[in-house]
Structure formats: structure tokens, C-alpha cells
């Protein structure tokens, strides 16, 4: 008898404790916003998330699982936002009820390893680089490369193109550029996050490409600018649409970003590939965020917008430190306007809409 009297009380206390633990765990979970997708901007998103949480903001859990998987996840609504390097097709955005805006801008550079040659002083053109990846240009002392670089003692070393073995937004940006400037490349290979290159070897990830270029005599590869600078890689000049040879630099990337047709491009998918302008670097691209227009949980969706609003205003330091380019201020406001399409019931979720 005594036992049965004590037991329920103990059990009640235990149950209360369990409920309290569950409730607090639930609260902690609700404060965490989740995103998934592109790996290209992952360093920036991660740095932003650290700083935002450090200033008392919500925590962001971002999974760099690749653009394709990020789009799939936001279509299935398993995350609060998706991230993709390539803009999503307008029909797909409409059918899946998604709104798209750019978050940050990055650049892709070419890196080389040619014995006895200062790669930073080398001049190359898009058509030549395209021919290397087509297997049509095989030696570094080819007459076409020498004609661009008089006085440079180019060795008789085989050109060893290196590309990303994994599907990658970097590959998408790079092949979009090569397709724009090299017609045979466009017709035989084309642009995509993984393509069937006709020559060279594939290495996993940015780090793999950087390592393979460094390990291989005559290697040439393409990486995010941040990787090239952090690893002290030799990055040749490229000829832009205006015929100028430009060095990869944040200024040259920003010049491209400023001239992109942001106001007219549908869904803000403004191309910054091969833009005209004497100072423009030709391989620049924005990376995009996807939000559902009809969020299941409006509060979480608002928190995502608050995060990116904060990042646009205060995230400049992280962007600069990691060698990306921030969105121009006008483009940031354009992105905020797009958030007004996210609605709960009939009211916009974002506070900045009237």
C-alpha cells in the first residue's frame, strides 16, 4: 500500500522533469534556422552565422550539400531556405512557389603550374582555356600561347587540365564562361555543374583541384578566388570582353558586379559572365537563396530574412576577409523587396513591406 502511494508521486515528478526537458529542447530547436545547398558560398554563410549568433541572433545550421540537393530540400520544405549557385529556372520557381534572391558574389580564377614560368604574369584567353579542356591545345609552348606572351620562355610541357570531379557550382560558373567564349566548347561539352570534359583529370573539391594543379607539371585548373589566394596559387590574366587582359582582383570582380543588369533580370538572375568593361574580370557570379512563398512556419521564415537583412548590413567584414564581393546596396534593397512575396495568410511575413 505504501509503495503504491509513493510511486505515483515519484512518477509524476519524473514526468514533469521530462516534460520540462522536452520543452526546453523544443525551444532551443525553434531558435535554430536551417539552410542547405551550395558549397561555393559556404565559408561566408558559416562566418555570418558565427557572428550573428555571437551578437545574440538566432543560430543558423547551414549544410553545404551541393546546389542540386539544396534545391531538392527546399522543394520538399525540409529546410527553412535553400541555396543554389546557378539561378533556378523561372518555371520551376513558379511551380514550386519559391522566391529567389542573390546573397553574395564570388569569382572563379584560373590557376597554373608551369615549370620556370611566373603564372601570375601569363596572359590567356577564354577560347584558349576552352581548347585546353577540349583536348585541342596540348602543349604549353604552342604557338597560340606564345603569341600572347612574347618574351616568356614557355617550356615544352604537356598541358594537364584539372577539373572538379564532384558536381559543383564552381564548374557551372566556369563552363558557362567557356561556353560563352568558345563555340566548340559550347557545342561539344556545354555548361553545367558536372560536365563531360574531353581532356584532363578530375579532383575532388576546391582543395583537390588546388592540390592536383600544384602536384602536376603543366597543370591548369579553376578554383574559387579565395582558394587561390589562400594557397598562393599562380593565377594568369584573362582577356575580357573589351579585349583587356585583367588580373583577378576584388576590384575587377566588383566592376563586373556593378554592371550586371540587376533591375531587368527576371528573378534577379543577372549574369556577370563575360561582361563588357575595361576593368571587368570575366568569370563572376552571384549565388542564390531560395525561400518558400508560402512558409509552413512564418516565424522561422521571418528569422531567415532577419538573418540575411543583418548580413547585408553588417556582414561586409566577413565578405571582404573571405575574398567574396558584397551585393551593391541597390541590389540589397531589390532583394528585400522580393521578400515581400513571402506571405502568411494574406500578410507579408517580412516587416519591411507596407
Amino acid at each position: 500500500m505504501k509503495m503504491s502511494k509513493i510511486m505515483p508521486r515519484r512518477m509524476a515528478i519524473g514526468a514533469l522533469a521530462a516534460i520540462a526537458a522536452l520543452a526546453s529542447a523544443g525551444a532551443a530547436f525553434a531558435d535554430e534556422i536551417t539552410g542547405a545547398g551550395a558549397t561555393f558560398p559556404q565559408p561566408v554563410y558559416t562566418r555570418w552565422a558565427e557572428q550573428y549568433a555571437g551578437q545574440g541572433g538566432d543560430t543558423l545550421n547551414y549544410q553545404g550539400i551541393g546546389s542540386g540537393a539544396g534545391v531538392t530540400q527546399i522543394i520538399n520544405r525540409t529546410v527553412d531556405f535553400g541555396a543554389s549557385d546557378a539561378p533556378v529556372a523561372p518555371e520551376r520557381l513558379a511551380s514550386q512557389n519559391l522566391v529567389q534572391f542573390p546573397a553574395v558574389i564570388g569569382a572563379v580564377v584560373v590557376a597554373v603550374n608551369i615549370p620556370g614560368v611566373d603564372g601570375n604574369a601569363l596572359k590567356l584567353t577564354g577560347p584558349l582555356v576552352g581548347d585546353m579542356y577540349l583536348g585541342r591545345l596540348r602543349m604549353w609552348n604552342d604557338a597560340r600561347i606564345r603569341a600572347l606572351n612574347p618574351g616568356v620562355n614557355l617550356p615544352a610541357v604537356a598541358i594537364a587540365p584539372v577539373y572538379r570531379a564532384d558536381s559543383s557550382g564552381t564548374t557551372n560558373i566556369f563552363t558557362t564562361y567557356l561556353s560563352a567564349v568558345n563555340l566548340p566548347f559550347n557545342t561539344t561539352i556545354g555548361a553545367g555543374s558536372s560536365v563531360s570534359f574531353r581532356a584532363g583529370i578530375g579532383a575532388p573539391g576546391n582543395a583537390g583541384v588546388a592540390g592536383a594543379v600544384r602536384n602536376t607539371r603543366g597543370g591548369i585548373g579553376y578554383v574559387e578566388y579565395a582558394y587561390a589566394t589562400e594557397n598562393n596559387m599562380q593565377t594568369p590574366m584573362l582577356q575580357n570582353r573589351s579585349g583587356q587582359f585583367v588580373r583577378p582582383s576584388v576590384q575587377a570582380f566588383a566592376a563586373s558586379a556593378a554592371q550586371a543588369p540587376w533591375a531587368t533580370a527576371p528573378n534577379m538572375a543577372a549574369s556577370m559572365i563575360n561582361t563588357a568593361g575595361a576593368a571587368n574580370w570575366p568569370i563572376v557570379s552571384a549565388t542564390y537563396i531560395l525561400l518558400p512563398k508560402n512558409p509552413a512556419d512564418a516565424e522561422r521564415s521571418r528569422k531567415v530574412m532577419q538573418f540575411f537583412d543583418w548580413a547585408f548590413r553588417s556582414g561586409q567584414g566577413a565578405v571582404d576577409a573571405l575574398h567574396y564581393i558584397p551585393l551593391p546596396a541597390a541590389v540589397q534593397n531589390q532583394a528585400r523587396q522580393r521578400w515581400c512575396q513571402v506571405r502568411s495568410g494574406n500578410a507579408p511575413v517580412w516587416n519591411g513591406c507596407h
Partner: protein
Amino acid sequence: MTAVPFENSRKLHLGESLFKILLYVAACVVLVTLAAILIILFVSGKDAFARFGIVGFLTTDQWDPVRDLYGAAAPIVGTLASAAIALAIAWPLGFGIAYFLTEICPRRLRAPLGIAIELLAAIPSIVYGMWGFFILAPFMSTSIEPWLTENFSWLPVLPNDMNPLWFWFQGAPVGVGLLTAGVVLAIMILPFIAATSRDVLLTTPQLLKDGGYAMGATRWEVLTGVVIPAVRGSLFGAVFLGLGRALGETMAVTFVIGNANRLPDGFFAPTASIASIVANTFPEADAGSMKLAALFALGFILFVVSFFVLALARLLLRQGRMA
């Protein structure tokens, strides 16, 4: 006929049958899971088989995500060729180690040496991959491959100069490619082949070997005349166990095979294996796309090939034991 204990005790009998049912369930879970994986792989990949035809999919070497055209020939050839190179290196080496450990090695060295070889199996495959990519590949590129090119330049191009498909040891010494993948795989399967071969050799009756030595046979003669004929089938089984592991190895191969979705045209050529192509392209394959179907179809092919290789290994090992 198995005797059932405590047959008369009703209570115990109930527990016994419950236990028996649980065991049946446990065994069935494995079989059902196996069958389910096979079915899922086939169903998810059937779009690729339907679009390109089973023969077409198996024999086309095109892998073009931009045009949505997929064929499995390049990764199938890459998988089989890298595994074959691995076997060609690891088989003699593994058998040599096994014979040394069972017959020639001083007794007190046997245990430490055996453990050292088995430790090779404990190294995670990603570590082999990184070692292969950062250490072995540059070494192959600067030392081994130029030496092979120089000394084997007399090998004729196959099938002929007008229609070249196979250049042996010609080609750019990039360091990563078919040969490097084979070497890394050889090191990875060596412990399996050595350990299984050692166990097989230990089953040779001592009486037979002593008989051979009593007749005045040398070690070599005992090996070739007595030991090998006695355990022949089982030795093949050991090799097939190693082959099964080599076929499915993913991470290490992805680092060193070069990841070019093309048929290799020589030992130095970069190519792809089924596992490496799936690992590389799976994350960005959209749900419902032909690319995803093609990757599932590749997984199905790898499953079937590995299944038959392992089944063959079991069969040979058992035959050897019965002989």
C-alpha cells in the same frame, strides 16, 4: 533431427519457441534488407535501362550530364581494370606473405608480423586516398611512370596504329589514373588476401608436407607439388574475397583514379570507377532526373557484380575445404 530440451515443460517450451521465432526474424531481416536494396536499386534505375536499353547502357561510354546521355561502359571498365591491376600486384605478394608466415618465418616473429599485416586492414580508406593523392601520385608522376614509359616503349599500340585504343605505358605521366588506383587498391586488399591465404595454407595436412620433405623435396617443390594442389580452390576463394573489396572501394579510388568519365587508353589514363562516379555526382543529382536513374542503375550493376564475385569466393573456399 535436433533434440528439443525440456520438451515436457510447457512454460519453457513457450519461451523456447519465442526465442526461436526471434532468431528467425533476425535472420529474415538480413535477407529482406538485402532483397529490398536490390529491388530499390533496380526500380530507381529502371528509367535509365528503359531509355538506353540494358545492352546500350552497359556498352556506351558516354557520360554527358549536360545532354542527359548516360552509359556505363567507362566506369565498368575502370572498376574491373583497376581491380585487375590490384589483384595482379596483391595476389603474388599476399600469397608470398602467407607462405612465409606459415612455413619459413621464425615462430616468434609470426604473431607480430601477422598483426602488422592485419593492421593494414584497419586503416580507414580515406587515409589511403589522401596518401595516394598527396604522396603516391606525385611519386608515380615523377619517378615510376617516366621509368615505365622509357622501358616499355616497345609494347605495340593495340589493336594497331591506325585505330589506337590502348597505349600501354604511353601518355602524360599525371600521377593519378588507372595504375595509381590499382596500386592503392593492391595495398588495401593485401591484408585480406594474405590473411585468408594464411588460414587456407594452415589447413594443409602436416602429414602431406612431411611426406614431401621425407621424399627429399625442396621447399619450392613441396609448395608447387603438395601444398598448392591441396588447397587450390580455397586460394582462388581468397583472391575473390580481395576482388570483392576492390570492386566496391570508393573513397580511396575517388582520390587517385582521375575521375574522368572516359574509357582509359593506357595505364596512366585517368578514368572512373562505378563507386567513384556515384560518390562524385550523387549530391547534385536532382530527384526524378535521368542522371539519378543512371546512378542507381550503376549501383545495381555494382551490387550484382559484387554479389556474384562473393558467391564465387564462398563456393571456392567451401570446395577447397571439402577436398
